[in-house]
């Protein structure tokens, strides 16, 4: 890669990262808050207690603000596919397009129809119908996420397709395999359930602010109780799905797992790093120690990845050199090929594509069949044709390692957080004045939940570098032939647009929170809309 192209790829990657990360500031709150407001309304439906209706309406308002401001921010990623990543976009069109189209239709029908009933329908439709609309809005939001995550999972683990050298596109052969890929299923549950954690922390944090200000205590304490129980269930499920994610990553993207752990030389009985500071001098081809300081748990990574203390976990250098026995996601054993072997195979695949096209232009069907066979045989390594140096296959270890460990540590923190919140505020007649410090902890934990959530995405996306499609297409083959300046311009444009939207979101949410007067709302006409 020449310097100019590297700069172009970096700016385009930066732009995609910026868009995805800003988009992800809105989405998890929408997903988390939607379930909590649905639970609150269910309690109202069951008990008929008007307080729960007012609690539901309060959280529904904040959901509405966040939903409205965040909506469509992800579409910008689709603009970028067509402009910045046109090779990629053409290469995957059919497969990537189908889930995104379903997402668009589903989001439109479920969310827009039922959210209208949810916002406009209080006292106009029956309680049961309203509750159904609220839950369907919640389900619609999660299903929208499902299709996006299926598309993303396919990039991490491309299955269910066949490459057509004639059209230079991957064509979907098995929709079920794409939708029910273990990576997609796991990614969906891990992402959506971790968003419930963020939603719960947000509800607790805002409620704690009310307690600090000595306002709306009834709303705050009831909300904390619901969010603590829900958050505790969510964090336990997040830990469970996170554990199965690691197991899948070990088989599908072993280089990502090695980077997550800062692991260069793998071993049997491989320890897992609980905390650590990476040695910045460490490179794959020197003998420096990977850590300046670390606390490790013996056998931990072998157990996490393969459920066996004695299992071998490959490190970065093992993956470069290959030659050890590994296992596919289907449990089949194979010998890990070296990077050099993969690069050779990738070049065979790409040369076969060139040969196929040449034979086609000459009308030589025998040669076309011959080259197609070579291409198919070597296609799983197609992307390695673009690798010049094995170092290009290593993701930025420091970013991936710290993002992963930040996510895990904050996950552990939130497990404790929900337990403490539930123990203190879940009791009958709790005394918030006595635990003012805890209310401050609750409030200050809101940004930590966002850091945890974003760290998860950084681990997943930076960890799969250099691939846009795992092993099949690297970023530097996916990029369009654009000027770096044009990508820089749109980068700054998006930064401004998203920052304005984020400020608007935070400002309106804070205004709504400050405005809330729970006692006064009891005497107000419930026909009042949003």
């Amino acid at each position, binding site marked *: 890669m020449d310097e100019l192209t590297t700069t172009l790829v970096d700016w385009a990657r930066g732009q995609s990262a910026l868009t995805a990360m800003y988009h992800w500031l809105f989405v998890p709150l929408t997903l988390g808050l939607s379930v909590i407001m649905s639970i609150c309304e269910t309690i109202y439906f069951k008990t008929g207690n008007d307080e729960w209706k007012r609690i539901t309406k309060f959280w529904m308002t904040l959901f509405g603000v966040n939903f409205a401001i965040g909506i*469509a921010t992800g579409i910008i990623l689709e603009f970028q596919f067509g402009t910045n990543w046109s090779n990629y976009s053409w*290469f995957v069109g059919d497969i990537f397009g189908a889930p995104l189209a379903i997402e668009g239709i589903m989001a439109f029908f479920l969310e827009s129809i039922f959210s209208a009933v949810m916002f406009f*329908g209080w006292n106009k439709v029956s309680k049961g119908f309203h509750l159904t609309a609220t839950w369907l809005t919640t389900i619609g939001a999660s299903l929208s996420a499902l299709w996006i995550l299926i598309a993303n999972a396919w990039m991490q683990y491309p299955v269910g397709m066949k490459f057509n050298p004639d059209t230079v596109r991957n064509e979907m052969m098995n929709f079920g395999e794409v939708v029910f890929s273990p990576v997609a299923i796991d990614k969906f549950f891990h992402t959506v359930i971790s968003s419930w954690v963020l939603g719960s922390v947000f509800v607790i944090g805002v409620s704690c602010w009310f307690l600090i200000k000595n306002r709306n205590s009834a709303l705050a304490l009831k909300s904390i109780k619901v969010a603590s129980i829900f958050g505790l269930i969510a964090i336990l499920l997040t830990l469970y799905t996170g554990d199965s994610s690691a197991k899948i990553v070990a088989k599908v993207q072993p280089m990502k797992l090695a980077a997550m752990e800062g692991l260069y030389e793998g071993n049997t009985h491989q320890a897992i790093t609980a905390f650590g500071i990476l040695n910045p001098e460490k490179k794959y081809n020197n003998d420096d120690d990977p850590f300046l300081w670390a606390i490790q748990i013996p056998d931990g990574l072998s157990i996490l990845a393969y459920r066996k203390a004695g299992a071998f976990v490959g490190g970065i250098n093992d993956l470069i050199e290959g030659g050890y026995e590994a296992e596919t996601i289907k449990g089949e054993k194979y010998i890990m090929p070296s990077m050099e072997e993969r690069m050779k195979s990738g070049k065979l695949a790409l040369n076969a594509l060139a040969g196929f*096209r040449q034979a086609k232009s000459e009308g030589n069907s025998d040669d076309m069949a011959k080259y197609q066979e070579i291409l198919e045989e070597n296609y799983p390594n197609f992307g390695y044709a673009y690798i010049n140096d094995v170092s290009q296959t290593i993701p930025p270890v420091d970013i991936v390692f710290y993002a992963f460990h930040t996510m895990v540590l904050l996950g552990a923190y939130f497990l404790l957080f929900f337990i403490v919140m539930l123990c203190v505020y879940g009791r009958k007649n709790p005394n918030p004045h006595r635990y003012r410090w805890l209310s401050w902890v609750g409030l200050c934990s809101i940004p930590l939940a966002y850091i945890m959530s974003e760290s998860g995405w950084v681990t997943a996306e930076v960890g799969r570098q250099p691939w846009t499609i795992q092993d099949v297409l690297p970023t530097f083959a996916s990029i369009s032939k654009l000027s770096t300046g044009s990508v820089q311009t749109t980068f700054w444009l998006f930064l401004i647009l998203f920052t304005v*939207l984020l400020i608007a979101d935070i400002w309106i949410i804070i205004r*709504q929170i400050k405005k809330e007067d729970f006692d006064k709302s009891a005497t107000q006409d419930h026909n009042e809309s949003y």
Partner: protein
Amino acid sequence: MGKEKTPFLITVFRFYRDGFRSMTIGRTLWAIILIKLFIMFAIIRVFFFPDFLKTKTDSDQDKSEYVGNELIQRNNTNN
């Protein structure tokens, strides 16, 4: 005489009309949504994010040709 039943579509129309009319914070949010969509689709999409392959050619055959050449040449530049 029994009360005449309002047709379903009119009921739906009134439901939405009344809902939009009685909005409070919703008005601000709709304004933000519309401004945002305008900026995204009428400015950013049109002026900054053209369909790159469409700027090269219109037919799918030519697009395949273009991307195929790109992928093969990208490899040559890269080596």
